[in-house]
């Protein structure tokens, strides 16, 4: 990757990415879920990266195959491994970003046998991120942006609104009753993604000196990209979360007098 940052912009930017030493990454309309802005594939500059985060059914991956016969880009960031199979013989850079499946050094190392880069799942701790980025090259870290917790193929928002005959919307905020934790749901025809209501902001991880970083401005307002980029570099979002970087999870309930692992 030519630059250290892969950036999903807050709208089609008028600025040249080269002048900012970043690579733009555009979520492709029809092949993404959980975005407020998606981009028609024919309008995305060929020097940019494209982002496809849907788990694709057969019909969709074949539709994508047809598109990629016509359009080519610097690289593709994707979650469905079928896309690797689709583009493995092209010159496009292959960056794998599974929301929850790239969590160990060994796993990432294995993906790197096939990919040009792997972005770590944002489910792991700073210690784990440090270990992996210090041990492997071509590893990216999700530095800033909406933090996804769940991806459903169902229309969870639409179904809820239909059931209760509520006004139709593709966006919903919910709150878990005991912890009072809030989530944002964003939906399109391909499914629903549940996010933390706060954006992830872990600029502290710049110190691990990862090969590259992913920055996602999808939730930012429509405004001048250059200003936004400058502000991002100089200040922390005050309504942000550090995700799991300082929250180690367990998976087996503690046994009295025993090991909890």
């Amino acid at each position, binding site marked *: 990757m030519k630059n250290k940052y892969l950036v999903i912009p807050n709208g089609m930017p008028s600025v040249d990415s080269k002048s900012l030493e970043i690579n733009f990454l555009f979520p492709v309309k029809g092949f993404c879920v959980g975005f407020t802005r998606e981009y028609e594939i024919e309008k995305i500059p060929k020097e940019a990266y494209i982002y496809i985060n849907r788990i694709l059914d057969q019909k969709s*991956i074949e539709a994508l195959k047809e598109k990629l016969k016509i359009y080519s880009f610097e690289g593709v960031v994707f979650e469905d491994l079928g896309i690797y199979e689709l583009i493995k013989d092209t010159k496009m850079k292959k960056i794998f970003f599974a929301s929850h499946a790239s969590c160990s050094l060994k796993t990432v190392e294995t993906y790197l046998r096939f990919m040009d880069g792997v972005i770590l799942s944002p489910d792991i701790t700073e210690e784990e991120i440090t270990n992996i980025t210090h041990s492997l090259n071509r590893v990216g870290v999700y530095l800033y942006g909406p933090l996804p917790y769940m991806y459903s193929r*169902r229309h969870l928002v639409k179904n809820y609104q239909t059931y209760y005959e509520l006004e139709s919307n593709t966006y919903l*905020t919910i709150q878990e009753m005991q912890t009072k934790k809030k989530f944002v749901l964003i939906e399109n025809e391909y499914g629903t993604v549940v996010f933390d209501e706060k954006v992830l902001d872990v600029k502290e991880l710049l110190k691990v000196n990862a090969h590259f970083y992913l920055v996602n401005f999808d939730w930012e307002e429509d405004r001048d990209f250059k200003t936004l980029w400058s502000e991002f570099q100089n200040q922390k979002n005050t309504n942000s979360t550090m995700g799991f970087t300082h929250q180690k999870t367990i998976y087996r309930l503690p046994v009295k007098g025993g090991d909890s692992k």
Partner: protein
Amino acid sequence: MIELLAPAGDLEKLKFAFHYGADAVYIGGQNFSLRANAKNFSLKEIEEATIYAHSIGKKVYVTVNIILHDEDVKGLKEYLIELSKYHVDAVIVSDIYIVCLIHDLKIPLEVHLSTQASVLNSYAAEFYKSLGVKRIVLARESTKEDIKRIKEETGLELECFVHGAMCTSISGRCVLSNVITNRDANRGGCAQICRWTFDTDGKPDFSMTSKDLNMITHMKEMMDLGVNSFKVEGRMRGIYYIATVILSYHRLIQKIKTNSLTDKDTAYYLKVLNRCANRESSPQFFSKFPTEKEQYFLGRKEESNQDFLGLVTNYEQDAGLVQIESRNYFKIGDVVEFFGPNIETFSYTIHKILNDSKEDIEIVNHPGSIIYLPVSSPLQKYDMMRLKVIDK
């Protein structure tokens, strides 16, 4: 090859699953498997389970389907080698490192790709095939078109869930449990947050809970599409559920194979399964996109019933007495039915009950009691007695 694949949370459930018609079971070890808080199988029990299964011509698959963190890698290689020594028939794997480790080290284990890997298209299936995967457990979101094309394009063995609970997410694409309870869903700690209700700002409570999966009405179509293995969910379920569900699907498959399945049969098995489950169910994604009708919004209507009345533990041929270990309340006058893998289900009105000393009693109200009923039709150990609520 057509296979009915049952869940088995422990050795007892495994034996019931086989007895009631499963061709194979999937089990979890005490490490590297989802359902981390279930009883699960020790290595010794896995060995015992495999020896038992092979002795009756059946198969055992072991789930090794967690998404690894660095701390989980230790002991993995040795564990896989150990499983191969026990000749388990396959491991069900999700993390690509485990897939490649088995391939690279040439560990003699057949690899089935877990549904947690979310395969919905032939290209993804082809990728895993190139890594030595023999079978794909398709994502539960697969449509009939996806199944057909994946089979046609790859020729891989395909396994599909046909019955049981659904994740609201595409399986493996959720960490809500991690954030709410700190329990890692992709390492077996899922707290099923998708079954909770949530506040919304001044609107009715939000729910995303899915109803269960039930493919009984589409089994022939799935067999025609080339699905090889029909998987029932529920390693935490009890023996009555396993027996009822497995026997229903087993009989249905036999009828399809012999071209003798009628609409009346399908309707009957659907009723039996709906009664056995405590949640509503539907075919979900197979032939149409699920709507609000495939979800719960007012909490789960879990109608727990006490249909399972007793387990046959012996049959005294000469006396025509069946010995039963009771599970729920029943009394003289109740209409019940007996079912089992080697008998036609039949009705029976209780007119006499004997206690363990063979003295007359009127009611049975202590689970675990040993009682006797005079039944002229021969029964076998592990047949079951349930309340009769459905007419065939």
